[in-house]
């Protein structure tokens, strides 16, 4: 069965430092993959999406992600974190004709 694992429930990073959020997926075939962000008291917003092609995907606000079929991963990165990046980040994979499966989310806290 398809699944998504985000091993880090919470990450704290200093403002200006780099950020990497991990995502591992389980999917038979070639997946469509997504990263969403949830700011406090808001719904989810799309950061970026991967459809088969270039493994490095650029998103909004300086985020990018890299797809690795050999590692079954889709890690999210940002070179320099801003305080406004304080949010919950969700990785998701398509279920093949059904809907998305979401990971449990990683909360990013930004320290000054």
């Amino acid at each position, binding site marked *: 069965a398809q699944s998504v694992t985000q091993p880090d429930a919470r990450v704290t990073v200093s403002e200006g430092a780099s950020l990497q959020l991990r995502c591992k997926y389980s999917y038979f075939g070639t997946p469509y993959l997504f990263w969403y962000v949830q700011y406090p008291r808001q*719904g989810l917003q799309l950061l970026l999406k991967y459809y088969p092609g270039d493994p490095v995907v650029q998103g909004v606000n300086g985020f990018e992600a890299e797809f690795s079929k050999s590692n079954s991963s889709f890690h999210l990165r940002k070179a320099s974190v801003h305080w406004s990046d304080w949010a919950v980040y969700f990785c998701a994979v398509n279920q093949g004709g059904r809907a998305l499966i979401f990971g449990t989310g990683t909360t990013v806290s930004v320290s000054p």
Partner: protein
Amino acid sequence: EAAVTQSPRNKVTVTGGNVTLSCRQTNSHNYMYWYRQDTGHGLRLIHYSYGAGNLQIGDVPDGYKATRTTQEDFFLLLELASPSQTSLYFCASSVDWGDEQYFGPGTRLTVL
């Protein structure tokens, strides 16, 4: 810009009560979804639909009914609410199953 609205934004009911959550999207998307969000579980799919009159069962459907009355409107019904259904509920829509989903702002439901 995709627009998904939900009402009410907050709802408190008692055990055994009858609750209807409403969702409207104005982008002529074919697919609409209901999720619940709980700490430690991420987002879990309750029901989804790919058009007016259509309903598909999600991963956690027990205790929930849903109805898609029009292309725009998707309702989630809790006919005998229980405290275990206390959660944050999100509606989303997409053009097709593998596409980016647009989320509403959420409804916080408390069942006492």
